[in-house]
């Protein structure tokens, strides 16, 4: 696995025009699987959420999950797609142990939704992304490869398969070729996936957690000689499992293909594998050609013909468009234009909204996501939404502050605990001994000592200069190791020194 020769990004863009295509797979958050009543809980013991249908045992018959179909239609509508009057499932035949049936039930030439578009904003520019299709399929089982290097399939002696994931409803969203982005191609790719994730989150159809695989992206990229030249040969990069990787993988492929072409070579049409650790792509397994899947209509599932009334009913459940949503939230939260741009730019809109929904004040919700948590996400090179801290927990931390149990400084330590997976905010406060000292006797004694040690400041306060209390508050807080409510300390000092 060696890194390919790369052309610099600037040189690549000077010579070629990139064309992208993005395929996003999203696992729906239905309670049960696509074609059977098995649960879909993430992280369950291996092969504990399976039945004859998803194990492909003889004679088992699939029945379609209505909520999954409704979610697929809502996704299609939210992407401005036409909804098929009638469509079917097909069998995609292949022999690979991740599907015990030896076929994947998928949609082929009759997707549930097609011909849509969505708009993605990058800085001040808007890019219209055309959607080719939105189709339903089922997820596959999860393989552990044993005996090779670091769990890779290459060199493995055998593989172990867990079918809990097999049959979980999956929606595939495919763009048409994305052209005209020029040098912004990698950023547009990332912005599109970010936008899709926000959209899917607002639809409430998926957890969209890339690190858990409930949102996965395959990035196609090709280069052509100019805006009017025919498309070049494309590669499909798989395993692009974070927003940052989407951008990096596209950028890498542009530089790699540019080097191949500049050297007089030809790009091989192939599936490539993204390596998060090294930041490169390598050729994947040779893929069976489309006709080799021998698709045919799934005889065990009746066609789907969503009636117009149902589609309109689902349309009525769509969340408002992003523009209107932003204005509404801005008004409700009392944020300035600048505040709002910071929140949206940080990809924190839904997180802040949910934190407020869980009880935190808007300013507090914004503060934690845009300062403390943004810093930590940045340190770890992940998106805010990928941190193991959620809106509910942020609201719980803020509630502890609001009730005077901890202060802002101690809250940072609670976030340390949350990121380390030490339990709920309440448990972390108890385990780490973070509660502020609200024992009035102890506080009063500390205040007395501070006044004694700082007679000058004390005299100024006595003379009516309340601002001079700062030095005394600082002394008390230092003695309490930060574990006191500064507001309460100030009140105590002022009461003791009132003229």
């Amino acid at each position, binding site marked *: 696995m060696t890194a390919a020769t790369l052309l610099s990004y600037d040189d690549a863009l000077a010579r070629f025009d990139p064309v992208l295509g993005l395929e996003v797979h999203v696992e729906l958050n239905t309670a049960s699987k696509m074609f059977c009543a*098995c649960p879909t809980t993430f992280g369950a*013991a291996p092969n504990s959420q399976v039945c004859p249908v998803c194990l492909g045992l003889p004679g088992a018959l699939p029945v379609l999950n*209505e909520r999954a179909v409704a979610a697929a239609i809502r996704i299609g509508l939210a992407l401005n797609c036409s909804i098929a009057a009638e469509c079917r499932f097909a069998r995609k035949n292949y022999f690979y142990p991740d599907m015990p049936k030896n076929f994947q039930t998928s949609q082929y030439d009759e997707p549930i939704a097609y011909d849509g578009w969505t708009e993605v904003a990058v800085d001040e520019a808007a890019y219209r992304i055309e959607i080719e299709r939105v189709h339903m399929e089922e997820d596959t089982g999860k393989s552990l490869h044993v005996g090779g290097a670091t769990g890779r399939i290459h060199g493995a002696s*055998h593989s172990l398969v867990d079918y809990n994931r097999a049959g979980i409803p999956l929606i595939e969203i495919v763009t048409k070729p994305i052209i005209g982005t020029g040098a912004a191609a990698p950023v547009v790719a990332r912005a599109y996936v970010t936008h899709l994730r926000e959209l899917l989150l607002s639809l409430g159809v998926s957890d969209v957690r890339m690190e858990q695989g409930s949102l996965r992206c395959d990035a196609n990229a090709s280069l052509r000689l100019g805006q009017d030249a025919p498309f070049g040969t494309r590669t499909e990069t798989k395993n692009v499992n974070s927003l940052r990787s989407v951008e990096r993988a596209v950028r890498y492929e542009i530089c790699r293909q540019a080097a191949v072409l500049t050297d007089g070579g030809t790009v091989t049409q192939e599936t490539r594998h993204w390596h998060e650790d090294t930041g490169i792509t390598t050729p994947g397994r040779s893929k069976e050609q489309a006709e080799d899947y021998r698709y045919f209509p799934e005889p065990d599932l009746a*066609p*789907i013909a969503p009636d117009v009334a149902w589609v309109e009913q689902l349309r009525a459940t769509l969340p408002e468009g992003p523009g209107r949503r932003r204005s509404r939230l801005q008004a409700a939260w009392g944020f300035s234009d600048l505040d709002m741009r910071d929140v949206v730019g940080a990809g924190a809109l839904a997180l802040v909204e949910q934190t407020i929904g869980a009880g935190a004040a808007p300013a507090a919700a914004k503060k934690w996501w845009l300062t403390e948590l943004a810093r930590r996400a940045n340190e770890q090179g992940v998106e805010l939404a990928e941190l193991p801290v959620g809106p509910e927990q942020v609201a719980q931390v803020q509630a502890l502050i609001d009730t005077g149990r901890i202060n802002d400084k101690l809250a940072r330590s609670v976030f340390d605990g949350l990121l380390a997976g030490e339990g709920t905010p309440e448990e972390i406060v108890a385990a780490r001994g973070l509660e502020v000292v609200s024992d009035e006797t102890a506080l009063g004694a500390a205040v007395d000592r501070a006044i004694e040690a700082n007679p000058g400041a004390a005299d100024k306060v006595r003379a009516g200069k309340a601002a001079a209390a700062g030095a005394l508050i600082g002394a008390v807080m230092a003695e309490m190791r930060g574990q006191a409510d500064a507001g309460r300390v100030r009140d105590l000092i002022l009461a003791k020194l009132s003229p």
Partner: protein
Amino acid sequence: MPADPPSGGALTREDVAHLAGLARIDLTAAELDHLAPQLAVILESVAKVAEVAHGDVPATSHPLPLSNVFRSDDVRPGLTAEEALANAPEVEQQRFSVPRILGADE
């Protein structure tokens, strides 16, 4: 669906070898010689149906005029892991153990 049978209708020995490869069935040259013509005859016989079905009979993927057969999104218990793995030739870490997936040259 575009997954048309091989053009020309007649199934060739190469078609059968290709399908056998996709299906992971190892056929000897003698078996191919023997099976290819047999399969061709079967396909030709089935193709006779097309002669009966004229333009007024639409292509049919499902025999019953049913659509929208749904179940509600309710969870029901399936098999236990022990039951699920009972017929597995090999079990390791509560998972189905399967032979190496990629060949040595892949």
